[in-house]
């Protein structure tokens, strides 16, 4: 909302500079995003209001003329190329040395005297462009005839315009008067409301038109005045100026007045050409389905029954609260009008405006909720201006329908309530003076000797945002200034019952994964089917669902998995694969929809962890291992992760579509599949154009895992006081035998407390279908130190058992 300071000053006197006022308004909730200082660079001594006293022809150039400019005490003749000069014209004159925007460079330059076609020109007659008033240059700037000669232009035309970002709760501040009331509260001043006086004629409005509201749920109040003998012309300069500064284009005096009063009061008004209204009647009614209206912007609009129209006996003449129709549009020949000031139901206007994608100054205000009381002062003000400026004759009386909803209950405010909300006592005199300066009316007050008070307060007709005591507390607090309210620490005890939850779990996971050298990534929740297919989903197994209004088809589907997300991240970082390897993970939500039509249905939203390892084990350096990461690197991460989280862990082969046959495993915890780890297959790697290095991936369902974690807590195990003994055993077994089975069998022996695979070999020296495995075994007993006999006996038992079960035999020939 643009608020010219000079307009504001018509209603409230103040001497604060624009910057300070902007700061104060911002603090009380009217954020001033910009101050437009018109003429801030016009030097008071150099740019002056002048009058053209004579014009001579240039002796050597047909296109140039030599106007003499009177500046009161002096006259100066200059060379001018503009063709809109005439004697007696008021103009802005710049002496040499003035700072103006150059027509050539489009930058601010110092005006120098110059010889133009042989004639010296000391100064110039300025165009709007040169003064920075407009982006284009169309001849010189013409000032009103009453502009006083000889005064600095900045004093005459200078202006500061505040650009205020009005929050949706304050439609009253979509008006100059509304802002004036805020200023009044800030400086403890009083607003002078404008004059709304006019004389009525003999003829009564009831005798010329019949106005009714058919659908009162859509229109809370409808007021109208009948005015005749109007002369349509250009508006006076002051009116046009205010409109231009407020970014409204002047049209003619009548339309300009309705716009001016809307900006002044915040109440949209509309004028209908009376002679174009059919049947001398106006009906405020719901639109009929498929009914049409051509709105003032020239568009034909198809309406539906949720909308409200103003209609004559035949058809709609306006789309209520949004825009007028061309049918009864004001034109140069208009002489009689019905001036409407109405109040439409806010949600109806909002829906209409959204459906038709038609947002206007009127709809913007109505959908924010205006008080029906506002219709009256605005109507009277506009009538008074029309009778004055358009010479209109106002008929007797006025239409005013459906005023029943205008009762506004006073709000009861107590000193206790104020201190309950703010945490500080505010004395009554402060409260009273703030509320009064904002226009509130104190209906009833009771103050006891302890300065406890109970007040009954009526809100002013322009405020629609105040309905409960807290609203009044905010009024008081913001005018006192939030910075002036004390600062305390919560004194209530800290609530108990904090539990380990998903947030804590994810934080633990992040720390562990980062400590393993992995970097966290976060990607978008939305994706598309191509991306999902690329990551290996076939159309039948995509459990994805969509956004109704995607911003682009690239981001249309909710991701059903993090696989595509992390593969994309990897692809975007492929530059790192060769030199240092990529180790990344992402924790995030995936979304699965299923058939359900209940009202409070929520899709399945699950928390997942994915990770990828790809490329070199280490960053290239002179003394590090230069191998590529393989399946056992990623498996090792899972093993340590689960160990640190105190979760049991098993792996069983899987056949997930994403992986190479045989190199993937389901991650099992407490007999449940909680994830998968493996080497991504060639086809998918190929989709992403990835290199030959193994692409290692894991995925874990965190919702499942956190449930399992809840049942497992860490317990200290005392260690054996008797020393253990180590024995290595090297065995030859069939390749098909799984190492884990050998290990488990070894551990079955009661004296063995640990067994780890320390070597695996196949190839030369070993039969083709066999492999050699070497285990390191720890023997110990809590009953005492084991003798070598005991150990040898156990070892023999183990080897025999392995032989029986897996056909294993001791590898000889090496030691």
């Amino acid at each position: 909302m643009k608020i010219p300071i000079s307009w504001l000053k018509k209603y409230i006197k103040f001497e604060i500079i624009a910057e300070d006022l902007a700061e104060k308004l911002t603090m009380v909730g009217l954020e001033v995003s910009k101050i437009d200082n018109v003429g801030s660079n016009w030097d008071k001594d150099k740019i002056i209001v002048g009058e053209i006293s004579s014009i001579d022809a240039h002796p050597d150039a047909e296109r140039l003329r030599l106007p003499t400019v009177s500046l009161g005490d002096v006259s100066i003749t200059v060379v001018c190329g503009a063709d809109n000069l005439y004697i007696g014209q008021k103009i802005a004159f710049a002496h040499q040395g003035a700072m103006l925007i150059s027509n050539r460079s489009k930058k601010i330059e110092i005006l120098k005297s110059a010889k133009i076609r042989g004639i010296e020109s000391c100064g110039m007659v300025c165009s709007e462009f040169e003064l920075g008033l407009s982006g284009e240059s169309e001849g010189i700037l013409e000032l009103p005839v009453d502009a006083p000669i000889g005064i600095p232009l900045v004093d005459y035309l200078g202006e500061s315009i505040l650009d205020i970002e009005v929050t949706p709760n304050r439609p009253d501040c979509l008006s100059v008067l509304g802002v004036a009331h805020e200023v009044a509260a800030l400086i403890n001043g009083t607003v002078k409301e404008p004059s709304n006086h006019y004389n009525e004629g003999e003829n009564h409005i009831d005798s010329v038109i019949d106005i009714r509201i058919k659908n009162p749920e859509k229109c809370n109040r409808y007021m109208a005045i009948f005015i005749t003998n109007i002369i349509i012309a250009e508006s006076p300069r002051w009116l046009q100026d205010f409109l231009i500064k407020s970014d409204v284009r002047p049209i003619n005096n009548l339309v300009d007045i309705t716009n001016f009063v809307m900006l002044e009061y915040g109440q949209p008004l509309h004028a209908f050409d009376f002679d174009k209204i059919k049947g001398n009647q106006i009906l405020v009614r719901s639109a009929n389905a498929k009914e049409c209206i051509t709105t003032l912007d020239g568009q034909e609009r198809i309406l539906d029954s949720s909308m409200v129209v103003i209609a004559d006996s035949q058809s709609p003449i306006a789309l209520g609260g949004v825009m007028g129709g061309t049918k009864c549009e004001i034109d140069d020949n208009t002489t009689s009008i019905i001036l409407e000031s109405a109040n439409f139901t806010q949600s109806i206007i909002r829906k209409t405006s959204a459906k038709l994608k038609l947002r206007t100054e009127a709809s913007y205000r109505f959908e924010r909720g205006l008080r029906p009381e506002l219709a009256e002062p605005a109507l009277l003000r506009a009538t008074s201006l029309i009778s004055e400026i358009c010479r209109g004759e106002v008929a007797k009386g006025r239409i005013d329908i459906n005023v029943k909803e205008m009762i506004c209950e006073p709000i009861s405010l107590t000193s206790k309530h104020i201190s309950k909300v703010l945490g500080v006592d505010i004395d009554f005199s402060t409260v009273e003076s703030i509320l009064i300066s904002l226009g509130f009316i104190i209906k009833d007050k009771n103050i006891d000797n302890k300065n406890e008070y109970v007040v009954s307060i009526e809100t002013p007709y322009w405020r629609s945002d105040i309905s409960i005591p807290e609203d009044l507390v905010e009024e008081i607090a913001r005018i006192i200034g939030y910075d002036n309210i004390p600062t305390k620490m919560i004194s209530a005890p800290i609530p108990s019952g904090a539990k380990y939850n998903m947030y804590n779990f994810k934080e633990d996971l992040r720390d562990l994964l980062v400590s393993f050298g992995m970097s966290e990534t976060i990607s978008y929740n939305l994706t598309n089917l191509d991306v999902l297919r690329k990551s290996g989903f076939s159309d039948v197994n995509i459990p994805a669902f969509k956004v109704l209004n995607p911003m682009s088809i690239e981001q249309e589907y909710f991701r059903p998995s993090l696989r595509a997300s992390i593969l994309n991240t990897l692809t975007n970082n492929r530059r790192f694969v060769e030199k240092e390897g990529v180790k990344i993970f992402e924790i995030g939500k995936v979304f699965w929809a299923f058939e359900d039509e209940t009202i409070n249905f929520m899709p399945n939203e699950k928390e997942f962890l994915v990770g990828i390892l790809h490329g070199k084990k280490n960053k290239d350096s002179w003394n590090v291992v230069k191998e590529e990461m393989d399946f056992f690197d990623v498996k090792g991460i899972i093993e340590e992760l689960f160990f640190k989280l105190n979760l049991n862990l098993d792996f069983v082969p899987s056949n997930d579509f994403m992986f190479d046959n045989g190199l993937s495993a389901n991650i099992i915890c407490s007999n449940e599949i909680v994830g998968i780890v493996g080497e991504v297959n060639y086809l998918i790697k190929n989709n992403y154009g990835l290199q030959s290095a193994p692409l290692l991936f894991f995925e874990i369902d965190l919702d499942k895992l956190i449930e399992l974690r809840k049942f497992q807590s860490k317990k200290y195990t005392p260690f054996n006081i008797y020393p253990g003994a180590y024995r290595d055993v090297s065995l030859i077994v069939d390749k098909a035998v799984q190492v884990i089975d050998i290990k488990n069998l070894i551990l079955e022996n009661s004296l063995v407390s640990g067994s780890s695979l320390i070597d695996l070999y196949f190839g030369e020296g070993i039969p083709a279908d066999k492999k050699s495995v070497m285990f390191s075994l720890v023997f110990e007993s809590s009953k005492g130190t084991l003798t070598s006999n005991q150990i040898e006996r156990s070892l023999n038992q183990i080897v025999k058992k392995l032989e029986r079960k897996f056909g294993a035999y001791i590898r000889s020939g090496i030691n």
Partner: protein
Amino acid sequence: MSEVLNIEKIAEIRANVIAEISKSSTEEEILKLRIKYLGRKGIISKFLRNVRDVPIDQRKVIGQELNILKQKLEMLFEEKLNEILNASVNPGKEISLKDVSLPGRRKTIGTLHPTSKIVREICNAFLPMGFQVVEGPEIELDRYNFELLNIPKDHPSRDMFDTFWVDWKNNNGEYPLLMRTHTSPMQARVMESSEPPIRVLVPGKVFRYEATDASHEWHFFQVEGLVVDKGITFADLKGTVYEFARTIFGSDRKIRFRCDYFPFVEPGVDVSIDCFVCEGKGCRVCGKTGWIEIMGAGMVHPKVLSSVGYDPEIYSGFAFGMGVERIAMLKYGIEDIRLFYSNDLRFLKQF
């Protein structure tokens, strides 16, 4: 014994031994030398036995000198042996060991995403004040995202939240699901599911239907805070926010509270800190205002309390919400928000 034992002789032996040690390069040679001089039948031992033949006036001095020499030799042999052993453990390593500028075998850990890092910093700033961290769904019902927060259907305050709707109709023919536009729905969820007192933080992803540029993302993170109890006031809100801002931005920052509007609070607040780039003078970072907005806040609206079944006569509370990336951008001097979720490791690995 034919050899004369005097000070000169001792000095001569010392010089010989040092020369022989420096010529030796193997462990074996040194061990031999040690036997030659310090062995039971070695030269020094022999001299020590012969001290008694030295004239009585010199005996004491010679004895002392021999003992000093013995100790000195033991030390020299030890040093030389260590040197040889060191070299033999890793032959050819002398060169590397003498260039300490060679890069170490650096132990690298990974990096947290800057968003996670800042979420954690924010939460940690509030944890000592008794807050608990909870999270909520990213796809929400209109009811929680808007209605229970005093944002009815067809209300202009919905304009503050450009919304992505989920393509799913219920059996009333409505589209009730959306991508949450803020973390505030958790205010209603937390209050609905538990009794006061409440002190929670809600970090999480939120979504706005808006075009992206250097300072706007359609997908970003917020941290929400909610405190509800008996006797919670605006002064408590200010104190809590002050404490947080000081922890995160440092105690020399000025903090400004100004009136603002959010439908679910009354009174509503906008919290800013003075710009640390220009020290409040006005620059590009603060949009020439000297102030940087860091959060919205306010006293929980009585309608919100009643809508979840709390009695606003008994309970009061405050809520606040802040954008995480914005704080990260300020702290790290990041100028383009789009860097956060483009997942370029050149960006991510800096944190």
